[in-house]
Structures are given as structure tokens and as C-alpha cells.
């Protein structure tokens, strides 16, 4: 806050924004030291958005795809789709094939676009610029410096074209109006199909190109490869993800599959049964409920097969499935497995590699769908007639399994709403990752340089959703890290 300049003007006051002013309420890390000055436990506080359930009560269930998509400016399409699927379930209605394919098309387009944003812009500073790059380069300018202006322009233009497709079907990307119980609101006019095909082809080429960028910049760097597989960023846990009938990854639909740390199937169940498998643990220091596998139980912040902590997101999806369903992504997955496998990959930083593979998978699925004759069909909806009671909808959001669960009265008004977002599924593992990074870097009260970088990398690989929806002008959700002694007194604060 050293730049605070409180010059008063006639109608307004001028103050200077500096990074520290951007910290309000976001991403707090507390590191507690023992009497020897070693890390006893580090906690990552993910501020939770509150009041959603109360806000939903009494509202028509049909409003939920719009309401939930508006709580998050980053992944509106994921909430919109999970809510829409919960409505299908609520009214016991299956969308016609064209509607289902259109939903899947829009959803894969969104996955590709969102993953690209993370690879190049959000996560890029860690693995494109490099973990030990100077602080002033660990940002978007550093990324452009490394990949070049042409690639930067390509990222921006491809993203824009992908979003045009989403807008075509769903109106505004941030407030999509597309999914309805039993179908969708709009189809593709045959005359517009060439645009979809062209963008899908461009998207696939872009995803393959991104894999090459990843190979050239990250995989050719032995230090980075070593870091990926280092113990500090490794946790053998359970993994969860949606799979199709062949146990291949499906972002839009399927059964929820959980594998144990050795890769063996632990559970496979329809989304509706999630409460039989997932429970939430509460810690006094956090609003976030930590999800764990009910049948194993909460055993504290421990990894291994005896602990119920599991993980979602790209790495988890590859582990929980038999890999992607499409050939080019499958090839990329084999390359990944031969470097990090054979079994489940437990290296948190491999999330970035897994994300690139998923970009290819999403782009290939887009291409399949835009060449499917049913995609320009006109039967877009089956009207629901059943009396509503309970509906559960699940999709794989870019950041992992997203569950929407609504209960209603017989008129379809919400009496209960429960959302489990990806970051809640990951909360236990994220906390362990932060704790492990801190333990490796603080000894005898001495804090190694680079602590903040490494701790940030530990959680950013998961792309955590810190708080759906707050859009204050600075637009940032960086972290504040506090090191406390055994009495809980703050010894040092680091922040961005």
C-alpha cells in the first residue's frame, strides 16, 4: 500500500492501484510454524461464495441455467450446462439427438477456448515463462515475449472465433440462453454450418500447434521436466471424472468414475447417486467444504489409498478414464503416458500437459459433431410433462467435475439447491499441495526465495476457482501468504 496517494479532488478521490490493493478476500494462505521454525501445517483458504442456496429458494427451476451461469464470469457455460442437465433430470426428459449434439458442440467449444486461456494466459507464466523467471516477467507480457507476437495474436483471434460460435447458439457468452429442460433454444441453420466447420478445423489446428509449443518450450527443458515429477508436486490420491460407456473422457455427459491411486476402478456411478459417494468435511479455518469419498472417510490431509481425498480437473480426468475418445488426443495421451506413466500420473504440474491434451480432445469432438448430419436437425426439444421432484446434472467443467442438484415442489419451485464446484472437489488436494510446497521451502524459520512462486504454482496447476463472480475492477485474485509462529502470531507476510 506504499503507493497510496489520497489526493482529494472536487468530486472524487484519486488513489493508485497497486497489487496489494487487489487482495481483498482472495486466496489467503496461512503457514503455521512449529517451535523449531519448521512448517507445521499450511492452509489455503478459498473464499466461498455464500448465499447461493438462499437466493435460489422459491425461484422457478427453469431460471437456474441463467442464474447459475451469471454467478461466474469465467465458466458460465459450465454452470449453464450442468443446470440444464439438472433440469432434464428434474423433469425426466431426454433431449432429442440434435439437441444433445448441439449442447455437446457448444460445450466442447467452450472447453477448448477456456483451456487455451489457461494454457497461454493464466498458467503460462509458470510453465511458458518458467518457474524461476524474474517476477516482472511472470505475467502475460512474459508469455508473449516467449511465444512471440504472432502466436499471441493467434491465441486472441482463435479464442474470439470460438466465442462467436458459442454466441451464435447461446447469445451472450457470459449469460447464455441456450439450454432448456429437454432440449435447446436454437439450432444451426444449414447455411451457417460452413462457419462452424471452418472454426472447428481452425480450433483443432490451433490445439495441435499448442501441443507443439508445449513440447518446444516445456518438454525440451530438462529442469522443467524434473520439476514436474519432483516429490514436492506429487500426491498419489484418488481421481474422479466423467466417462463414456468405454471409460473414455467425456466432458458433457456420462458416468462418474473414481479410480484409486494405483489406477484401479474404485467406483462408477450415475450422477444422481453422487451423495452416496461424496461427502463434505468442514474445517474451522475455512468456509470451503472439503469433499472426500464417503466410503473411505475423511482421514485428514493425507494422500494414499487410505485417505478419502480425491482430485478432479485435467490430470484427474486422464487418470480416471482410459484416456481421450479421439485419435489425435489419444496419440498425445500416449506420449504423455510414456513420459510420466504408465499408471495414474500423480504429478500436480502435469495438469498443464493434460490440459493441452484435452484441448485436442475437445477440438476433435467439435470436428466430429460439425460433420454429423444430425447437427443441423430441427427437432430441438422434447417438452417435459413429468412432475418435478429432484434433479442432478453433472458436467466436466474445465476445472473438474461440477455437480448441480436441485429439489423442487410440484410446481417446479426450488426448495433446495446444492452446487459442488470443481474447486471443492479439489480443495483437499490443493491444501496438501500448498502444504508440501511450503514444507520444502521453509526450514528452521528460514524462508527460501521463490516460496511464493512455488506455492502459487502448486495451486495454480488446478486452476482453482477462488470465488465465482466477483468482478471488481482490478480483476485479480492473487494471493496473500502469512507465516505464523506456533502462537499464531504473524511473522511475515508476502503478497502479490
Amino acid at each position: 500500500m506504499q503507493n497510496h496517494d489520497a489526493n482529494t479532488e472536487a468530486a472524487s478521490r484519486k488513489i493508485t492501484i497497486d497489487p496489494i490493493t487487489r487482495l481483498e478476500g482472495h486466496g489467503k494462505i496461512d503457514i503455521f510454524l512449529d517451535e523449531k521454525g519448521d512448517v507445521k501445517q499450511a492452509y489455503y483458504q478459498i473464499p466461498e461464495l455464500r448465499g447461493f442456496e438462499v437466493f435460489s429458494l422459491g425461484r422457478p427451476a427453469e431460471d437456474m441455467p441463467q442464474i447459475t451461469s451469471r454467478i461466474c464470469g469465467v465458466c458460465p457455460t459450465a454452470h449453464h450446462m450442468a443446470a440444464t442437465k439438472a433440469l432434464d433430470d428434474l423433469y425426466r426428459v431426454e433431449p432429442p439427438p440434435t439437441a444433445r449434439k448441439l449442447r455437446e458442440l457448444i460445450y466442447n467449444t467452450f472447453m477448448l477456448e477456456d483451456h487455451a486461456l489457461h494454457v497461454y494466459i493464466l498458467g503460462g507464466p509458470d510453465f511458458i515463462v518458467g518457474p524461476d523467471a524474474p517476477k516482472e516477467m511472470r505475467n502475460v507480457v512474459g508469455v508473449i515475449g516467449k511465444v512471440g507476437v504472432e502466436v499471441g495474436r493467434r491465441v486472441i483471434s482463435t479464442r474470439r472465433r470460438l466465442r462467436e460460435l458459442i454466441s451464435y447458439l447461446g447469445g451472450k457468452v457470459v449469460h447464455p440462453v441456450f439450454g432448456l429442460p429437454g432440449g435447446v433454444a436454437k439450432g444451426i441453420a444449414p447455411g451457417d454450418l460452413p462457419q462452424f466447420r471452418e472454426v472447428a478445423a481452425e480450433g483443432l489446428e490451433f490445439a495441435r500447434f499448442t501441443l507443439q509449443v508445449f513440447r518446444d518450450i516445456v518438454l525440451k527443458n530438462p529442469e522443467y521436466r524434473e520439476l514436474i515429477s519432483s516429490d514436492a508436486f506429487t500426491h498419489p490420491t484418488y481421481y474422479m471424472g466423467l466417462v463414456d460407456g468405454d471409460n473414455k473422457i467425456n466432458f458433457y455427459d456420462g458416468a462418474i468414475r473414481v479410480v484409486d491411486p494405483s489406477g484401479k476402478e474404485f467406483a462408477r456411478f450415475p450422477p444422481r447417486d453422487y451423495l452416496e459417494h461424496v461427502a463434505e468435511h468442514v474445517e474451522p479455518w475455512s468456509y470451503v467444504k472439503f469433499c472426500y469419498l464417503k466410503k473411505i472417510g475423511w482421514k485428514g490431509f493425507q494422500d494414499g489409498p487410505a485417505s478419502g481425498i480425491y482430485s478432479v480437473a485435467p490430470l484427474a480426468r486422464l487418470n480416471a478414464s482410459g484416456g481421450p475418445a479421439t485419435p489425435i488426443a489419444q496419440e498425445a495421451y500416449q506420449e504423455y503416458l510414456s513420459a510420466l506413466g504408465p499408471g495414474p500420473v500423480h504429478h500436480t504440474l502435469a495438469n498443464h500437459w493434460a490440459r493441452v491434451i484435452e484441448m485436442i480432445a475437445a477440438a476433435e469432438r467439435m470436428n466430429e459433431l460439425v460433420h454429423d448430419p444430425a447437427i443441423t436437425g430441427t427437432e430441438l426439444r422434447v417438452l417435459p410433462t413429468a412432475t418435478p421432484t429432484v434433479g442432478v446434472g453433472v458436467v466436466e467443467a474445465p476445472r473438474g467435475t461440477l455437480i448441480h442438484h436441485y429439489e423442487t415442489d410440484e410446481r417446479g419451485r426450488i426448495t433446495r439447491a446444492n452446487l459442488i464446484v470443481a474447486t471443492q472437489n479439489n480443495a483437499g488436494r490443493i491444501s496438501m499441495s500448498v502444504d508440501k510446497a511450503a514444507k520444502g521451502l521453509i526450514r528452521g524459520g528460514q524462508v527460501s526465495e521463490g516460496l511464493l512462486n512455488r506455492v502459487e504454482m502448486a495451486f495454480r496447476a488446478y486452476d482453482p476457482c477462488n470465488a465465482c463472480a466477483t468482478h471488481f475492477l482490478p480483476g485479480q485474485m492473487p494471493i496473500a501468504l502469512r507465516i505464523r509462529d506456533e502462537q499464531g502470531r504473524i511473522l511475515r507476510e508476502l503478497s502479490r
Partner: protein
Amino acid sequence: MKPLLLALGNDLMGDDAVGLVAARAMRQEMPEGWEVQEAAGNGLDLLDALEGREKVLLVDAVCTGKVPPGTILEFGVPDFRHLAAASPHTVGLPEVMALARELSLPFPSAMRILAMEVEPVMAVREGLSAVVAEALPRFLERTRAICASMAAAP
């Protein structure tokens, strides 16, 4: 392209909506030729809204924690020069401006930012708090004045 009044915010998030409320109130009385848009505030959406424009006034809620809620703050482009390190999750105005600069994208030469300080919002609710609602007329007054002065500038 037309001059733009761009409101950022989320109207399910209480005071975060103050920019949207202001922009809706201003729709009927904007200077000739101005456009009004709302954006959800994810950074790259800003890029879409701003690219190719010359004059832009951005209205939003801000949460500096340094001044009382309801305080009206004005910023210029230089106030956002400082890039944060990578955010865990999102892209802000400083990053969008840096991207535009690095990629030589056409970006507003005249951009002003008017913001109202609000309390951190961590609960879903509709409607503005009393203190923000009370400050709204002054916020609108300032919006009008800035638009008029930007409209008059060459």
C-alpha cells in the same frame, strides 16, 4: 467506432452491480453517438469490447479497502500499468492493456475509469446497499460530466 460507456459488474452480486445500474440509468441521456455496453468483467471480454475504440469510459465497482464505501474514484490508464504476477484464475484490466500493447492491437487512446468503492461482496444477492445507493446520484453526475467532456474533446 463509436465512443463507449462500458459497465462492468454482476447484478447477482449486490454492490458489484453499481456500474451496471449506472449505465442503465445513463442509456437515455448519453451524448449523441455514444454506445452503452455491459460486460461481466472477465478480462478477455474487455479486450473484445475495447479493441478498435478510441474513447471509452469504464464504470465499475472497486474494492481497494482504502476509502469508505460509496467513495467515488477515478483512474486513468497509467494507474493500471502495474501488472500483477499471474493471477490464479482471471485476467484483469492491466493484463488486457498489456496484451493490447504487446500485440499492437488498436486500443482506446482516451480511456477513463470511474469506480465506486464498495465492501467486498461474497454473498449472492440482488440490489445495492444503502450507502452505495445513496452515492449513486453523485456517481451518475460524475459519469455525465466525464462523458460530456470526452464527447467535447477532439
